[in-house]
């Protein structure tokens, strides 16, 4: 059980870290997709089947496509990024320092806290149950999310589709 988790974690973290390190944007995007797939695997491991598939469908099937499209549309040089200038090296250093510090603090906090032991089996939740929950208890939230999505997509379309040239990629 834990072995599986650790394997998943290695896939997930490794590909995420590699994605952030690669110079080639397409490689980054593809590695990130692997990382998202790892997240889905984690959900599956945790017994959240529905969420796992939704994760794959939306992240791997949709968001990744938009990302790839964006990368292709904004390609400029064969080398994705120019050689690091001092300023950006500074940025990189700061960023990594901040991230490491955050990691340290959070890990300390997690390790020092105590949780009530979990149930042995995953809570059984059927798809129907999720649907009912969504519609009843979280109906308002669902509506709001729907509105946000619609507005965001409209905005994205308007942003990307300037000079009357409609591109299909703007509608994820």
């Amino acid at each position: 059980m834990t072995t599986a988790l650790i394997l998943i974690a290695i896939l997930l973290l490794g590909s995420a870290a590699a994605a952030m390190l690669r110079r080639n944007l397409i490689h980054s995007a593809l590695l990130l997709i692997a990382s998202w797939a790892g997240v889905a695997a984690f959900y599956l491991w945790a017994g959240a089947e529905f969420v796992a598939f939704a994760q794959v469908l939306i992240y791997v099937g949709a968001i990744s496509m938009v990302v790839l499209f964006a990368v292709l549309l904004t390609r400029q040089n064969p080398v994705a990024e120019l050689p690091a200038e001092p300023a950006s090296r500074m940025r990189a250093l700061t960023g990594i320092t901040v991230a490491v510090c955050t990691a340290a603090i959070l890990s300390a906090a997690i390790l020092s806290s105590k949780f009530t032991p979990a149930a042995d089996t995953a809570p059984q939740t059927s798809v129907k149950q999720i649907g009912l929950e969504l519609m009843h208890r979280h109906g308002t939230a669902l509506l709001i999310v729907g509105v946000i999505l619609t507005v965001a997509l409209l905005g994205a379309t308007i942003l990307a589709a300037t000079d009357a040239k409609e591109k299909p990629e703007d509608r994820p």
Partner: protein
Amino acid sequence: MSTSQVSGFNTQVSAPGPFGGPAGPTVRAVHDQFHGDLLEVSMGPQHPSTHGVFRMVVTLDGEQIVKLKPVFGYLHRNHEKIAENTSYLGSMPYTDRLDYLCSMSTNWAYALAVEKLDGQPVPDRAQYLRIIMAELTRLLNHSCLVGFLFNDLGTSFTPLLYAFREREKILDLFESLSGSRMMCNYQRFGGCRVDPSPEWLEAARRLAENYPRFLDEYEAMLTGNEIMLARTQGIGRLNSTHAINAGLTGPVLRASGVDYDVRKIDGYGVYPRFDFRVPLGAHGDTYDRYMMRILEMRESVKILSQAFRDLPAGPIMDPKAKLRGFRPKAGEAYGRIESPKGELGFYLISDGSPNPYRYRVRPPSLINLTLLEEMCLGHTVADAVVILGSIDIVLGEVDR
């Protein structure tokens, strides 16, 4: 001759990297204009839809064409040079290989030019036979062209194979008459080579009679198809003024609404004795060019039925015509016919020797490509392929 000037014109676009990296100067200029990322694709000379070894250097913005330069010469077989070193008769089989889909009409064009050069009369029966061959060739060419066009539009060969099924029937006729499927070498100066038997004529008549049935089926298959309409209507529009100025001829010109058919204008052969109509398009787009072919085929069937009805008896060859040692009088002549692709002309200068001094082919396929770029600009790659298909080129004739 200033060869340095030649190289001065070498504005060949350098091959860019896979992502439009260091491209040629022209591409850069376009880049600044359009402010997008351009991709330069070289379509051909080996490409499924360039109808042979034609090449288009296409600059793309996304899928849209911002520049298209045709490159010719991959099938430049020096036909004209060879003809200038060969006797008049010896060039006849070479004309078969110009427009290798329509050897019969190319033969005729050449024979016509030589007859004009030498003042050679042609017996009536031969004139009728020539018309029969030319119109059969038109049927063959147009149905194949439509098949190829559909192929470019993305069918999996089905219409092309139906067209070739009918083509085989016509080729069988040609073969049994002239001895060869494609390279008929049938016309001679002053007549034709072989007189068809009554059975042959009967078979040809039956074929022409049944052809409309095939055409109906062919049209039912895809003419009304919504995808076909959307893919061809409004694509590659061409207005008549430009078309005339660019010297376009044949169905491509008539699709733009210009009434110009050499069969009617020159009245060569015995065409004035025939009752047929010339269809005209209104929009000058790919669909019109397609429909011109279909309608012309229907008119050809009419001409054929009249020809079979009126075919006179008599010799097929002027008895005074010479086969060997043919030396036309000094002078020059430009003979032209309405080949299935447009105006096919032969310009001959004779200095009285057995070989032509100058032998020039006016290739409709080449000149019809003059406006290819203008027709394609703003459309997508997929459309460019279709527009090219609708022009109907044969590389043997384009490059000669």
